[in-house]
């Protein structure tokens, strides 16, 4: 599991590649926690390379969203594949995230 945070065109972009299972979650959460300090910028989570996500991974997504909403920012999810989108739908996450 590889996690990269970049700034592109005034937006924070998190690029996730690999399987975000329970064992990978703590590491990913730690990396992505930098996004919680960002103010006034939209966040894009690029899931093009995300193959799998467990509930622990979903919790990280939810944490980032709740944090950003408190500060008035938006969180977008990009490039999600069909398998992972199914997980989002089952859990109702598709209702609370914006997809680009």
């Amino acid at each position: 599991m590889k996690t990269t945070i970049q700034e592109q065109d005034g937006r924070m972009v998190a690029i996730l590649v690999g399987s975000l299972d329970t064992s990978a979650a703590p590491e990913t959460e730690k990396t992505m926690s930098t996004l919680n300090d960002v103010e006034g910028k939209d966040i894009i989570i690029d899931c093009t390379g995300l193959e799998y996500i467990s509930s622990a991974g979903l919790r990280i997504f939810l944490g980032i969203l709740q944090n950003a909403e408190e500060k008035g920012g938006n969180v977008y999810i990009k490039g999600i594949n069909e398998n992972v989108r199914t997980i989002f739908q089952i859990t109702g996450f598709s209702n609370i995230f914006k997809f680009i």
Partner: protein
Amino acid sequence: MNGIIAYIRSKLSIKVSLRVVVSAAILFIAALGLLFFQAREAVSQEAISRATQILDKTSLRVDSILNRVEVASDMTKWLVQRNLDQADSMFVYSHSMLENNPDFYNCSVAFEPYYFEEKGRYFSAFTKHVGDSIRTIQGGSDSYQYFFVDWYLMPKLLDRPCWTEPYFDLDVATNTSEMVTSYCQTIKDKQGRMIGVINTSLSINWLSKTISAVKPYPHSYSIMIGRGGTYIVHPDTTKITRQTIFTQTLEQPDTAMTALGHAMQRGEAGVKQMNIDGKDSYVLYKPLGKTGCSMAIVCPESDIFRGFDRLQNTIMTIVAVGLLLMLYFFIRIITFELDPLRRLATEAETIASGQFDAELPDFQRIDEIGQLSHSFGNMQQSLVKYIEELKKTTAQKATIESDLRIASKIQLGMLPEKFPTRADRDDVQIFASLTPAKEVGGDLFDFYFRDEKLFFCIGDVSGKGVPASLFMAVTRSTFRTVSAHESMPDRIVTIMNKTIADMNKNHMFVTLFVGVLDLPTGRMHYCNAGHDAPLLVGTGVGKLPCDSNIPVGFMPKWKFSLQEAQIFTGTTIFLFTDGLTEAMDANKAQFQMERVNEVAARALANQQHEPRQLIEQMTDAVHQFVGNAEQSDDLTMMAIQYIWQHNDARMRKSIMLPNDIQEVPRLNAFVEDACQTVGFDEIDTMKIKMAVEEAVVNVMEYAYPSGEHGDVTIEATSNDVRLKFTIIDGGKPFDPTVQSAIDTSLSAKERKIGGLGIHIMRQNMDSINYERLNNLNVLTLRKKLNNKN
């Protein structure tokens, strides 16, 4: 005739009048009858006394006439005996006899032949009436030798004066004869020798007229008979001297007449009532002094009672006319008096036809009819009032009934309607029926599947009707609520009991059987709270052993016991309420457990013990037993047949991991491998991977105390139907299936970070099931193979 009787029966006025008049008529007839009888007696007495008086008078007159004859004869005899020397003076004496007594018929002073030598053989100074004059002649001649006739011979032979029997006196001069009776006595000379006879005659005809002159009644008549019974006086002159009183009795025996004749001959006096010549008559008879004759007056009753009969007829006519008039007036008066009643009856008919506001006539009377009218008015008002109330009540009742129907629908709607059969499930099939005695009932049954477990219950609330139904609804929803978080029946019942007992102010209770059947294994946990023990119909028919727990609802602190049983494939669990065993026929006999057992045994013998078949047979048996009797209690039955077939495993793999989440990739690789082996596609594989990861991570994080080492074994098996993951650990008991599900519709802010795990497991798998076995937590996740496999 029937028409007339029917008419009279329909008319009160005629009926009453007829009764009164008939009663009056009976009274009148009785009174008048008595009166007439006594009056008739009096009239009869009066008639007898009157006739007696007349008879006495007539008898006296006859006596006086006879006496006069005797006295005149004696006087003449005295003169004759003094002047025997002057023969011609005899003519003077004889003449003066008739001259002085014009009513005598004739008189003869007759002497012995040649007593007066100058007069020859015959000398009889004979005087009789010729027209208005009296003629005296010498009566003896060769053609009438008087000294040979009765009147001359009788006194001469008897040597005393005597009256002759009537005889015909022949008048030679005119050649006429007259019926006479004579008084004759001898004339004697100074030496006492008999020298002649003085004969004085009375005309019988005259005597008869004299006797008959006085009649007590117009048709009464007198008769006189001589010593031998010969008629001397009789209205029928042909009978005189020719017939006796007995003549007629010779032809037609008549004892009364014979007795009368004898009595008269004996010289008796009296009265007899008898039939003479076809007429009822009174006969009064009396002897006539020295003549030896007897006379009688015959008075026909028709004469005596003529006036009386006329009076009687008049009175009867008056009474009859009076009664008829009375009948007529009674009918008119009663009809008039009852007229208001008829109007009232017409009005009543109007009211009876439904016009309650019809106006009643106001009679202004204070008698019974007035009272009736008044009462009727009151009744009408009450009727209007009651009908109004009845309408209201009926409307209310209709509303209540409608509410009850709705309630009944709601209540039945609470119960499961879809019963799984072999076509729906391969583990269990269920059927149930609930028939409330009233619109709503207190029986309940319920079942639902959670994970790989069947939760079911059956119960019977004390009492019936709406209260029981409300209690039933509470019980059923409590069961659902509690069993969502508890998998052990004893826990479920204990919590339900506490919840229900806390809010049970009406001291109701419910007998309850709660069972949880673990479908993969056929193990059944159950708790029986005072309910009838279910039957197991499988290898035989037998009762499921049940602890004696109290019913649910009144002892909040009661700890209910748990029991366990193995249900084998093919066995049907038959649950019922006491409405089955206590179903009553018309004679109040109960269906009883023996019959339930018989029906179940028969069903089993015929291999007809699938849930629907069993319940249908039981229902038929109950209906046949009960017949037309009213259903006495709610009747509920539920049958659950365990049909799990343990198919042979197609694949079996296992892995054992330590409680370290760093092992998750290994786990995921194992799951992916298993999924690919049985042919799941990418999406299903990911879903299964996610679910198993959640389950295993749960164990890794919570089953063992922090920092303590522990293992978790994951077993993947599959048959033709399913892929099954069994996750086994030796940690503390933990049932992840009772975690409450999350609400996926909440916004990001409201969503909690945790709680997703169980949701993902349920969503991604077909079933999950938790069991605590031999101090191990055993969690099973199943996914059906689809046609892509």
